[in-house]
């Protein structure tokens, strides 16, 4: 249960310090710049068009794995680094 408490505290710090917002915006920007949104939208559109009875959950099942794979490696690395640095700052 101590884990849950720690997680709750971390989340609280994340949100209140504005770091969550910063990280989100940064991620969004990187994904836009690297054409990820366009790629995934195209993938989703194509997948939807092929579905006879379009369904959201089915769409997610089909698209999510590839969408995650399409995220450029350097973005993952950078973001993980930013999260790590944040954690180092707040956890002693």
């Amino acid at each position, binding site marked *: 249960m101590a884990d849950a408490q720690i997680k709750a505290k971390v*989340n*609280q710090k*994340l949100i209140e310090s504005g770091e*969550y917002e910063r990280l989100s915006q940064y991620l*969004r920007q990187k994904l836009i710049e690297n054409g990820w949104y*366009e790629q995934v939208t*195209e993938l989703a559109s194509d997948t939807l068009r092929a579905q006879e009875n379009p369904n*959201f959950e089915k*769409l997610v099942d089909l698209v999510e794995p590839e969408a995650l794979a399409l995220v450029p490696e350097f973005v993952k690395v950078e973001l993980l680094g930013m999260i790590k640095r944040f954690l180092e700052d707040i956890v002693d």
Partner: protein
Amino acid sequence: MSTVIVSRAPPSNNANNKRASPSPRSSASLSSSSKRKLSVSSGPSDQSGNRAVARKTVPGAASSAHESHGNSSTMKSNGTANGNSTASPKSDGKFSSGVGIMSGINVDRGLVPQAIGCVHVKQLLSSPSQELALKSYRQAVRVALELRDRTTDISAFQVRRCRTCNELLTTTFMCLQCPSVGCKKSKHAEAHSRDVGHIFGIDSRSGNIYCFACKDYVYNYTLEKIRGEREDLLEAKKLKKRHQMTSELSPDDKQLVELNSKAPPCQAGLRGFQNMGSTCFMSVILQSLIHNPIIRNDFLSGSHDSKRCQRENCLGCRIDEIFTEFFTSPTTTGYGPALLLTTSWKTQRSLAGYSEQDAHEFLQFILDQLHATSDAKSSSDVDYCGCIVHRTFCGQLQSDIVCPNCRNVTVTIDPLMDLSLELRDRKLDASRILGLQQCLEKFTSPEKLETKYMCSFCSTRQEVTKQLTIKRLPLVLSIQLKRFEHALKSNKIDDHVPFPMQLDMTPYTTNSRSKKRYVYELFGVVCHQGKINTGHYTCSMKNREGLWFNFDDAVVTLSSEKQVLKSRAYLLFYIIKELS
């Protein structure tokens, strides 16, 4: 302009559709017109598709990384303008390309599978608990949307947390019928729906409704209207405007407006220009003005009344006439801008004749003329001129000249109407053609000037460093890619110069470290094919619904973002994404 164009609310399900949506006759005339080819290309992007499905436009509204599906789009789909003449706005299936009218096909709704809403929502809204359901939905939507923007307020996250696992940073559903809130990821919301039989969840970030029985987000017109109203209200608050015109009119005024106005023809503003002898350079620039939301809104609001204007050879009147014609006439054949031509020739003799001119030069000419013929122009500083041209296009360019000896910086600020960018970095690699952002980077990077200047501060001749940055960004950014080189031999760079749909201009501003982001969205591309002197201009423009069209003189065809991004751009038009 004598006709008032009134933006109508989307038609309600059981409203009289004859007035609200364009009649099927218009679609028939569009597709049968021989002079104008309207073809629906095989893969139009589903721009105006179902809101509940992952949207095309980049989410600007939700500010967290874990996207709630079905964000409101920044370019709202206005149900009327291209609505099919059937009851609900998008009745030809979820993947309406938004151009049902264009294809001239009337979909037989009996044959289309139930793509709108679900039986469960329908049942709910026709049952006796209808009122209660709507009230609950309204409240839930208000909570979801108002909390969404409070990104550093922990209590906002607490309200939306999953009551089972207490997770804060994950998609959750608020139950429509009770105060329960459950997360999506660990299926706690699903568990609730199974255990208690409450099958409707409201997405706690977007307000979209999810049916656990259908395991799908569902689109229901009534509910979507409620959600949309709350979105509009919030956006209006952000713009510090508390009035929404249509709801502020008294019933008498409303009647007066409706009796005296005509619905705009379908796809108003979408029309080609006849080529009247190498006039394609004009057509493309005119299209860029017609599709420029700020210029368009200004002319359509009647700021230059061609019937009252007393000026001779007034280009403002000519442009106003074109706007009137394009937005009120149901004709779809190419427009021959004869009057505009003669007025242009009378104003600038060099335009007369049948030779091809440079589109960029024509843009500068026409903007100059629109300024000159504007009633709103200021006589002094162009930087702060009140005419629509300067209010739209004029920014400021700052030039910093640094003396390496005394470090004195000479700052000059000049008005900026457009950016002309070099496509090569001669110092680095003259053979490589840069992408747009790289061109901008080069444009705004410090450059050591070859000729020595006399520094007035330390009185020595020095090789100074000059740096250009944008001090004030205009609302609409027009960019010219310098494809025409006039070195020893005139040469045209025909290579593809990559450019983005969304452009963040912040790094190129004077205060580039600012936390505020200045993001622009592409709405127009002018292309030139052929050699330097003998060539042809075409363009691609984005309309109000976010659809891209190609304009080749009088021929207008549906395009797509993908196609546009591949084009060999010469001129690019970007508009600021948010006015806040």
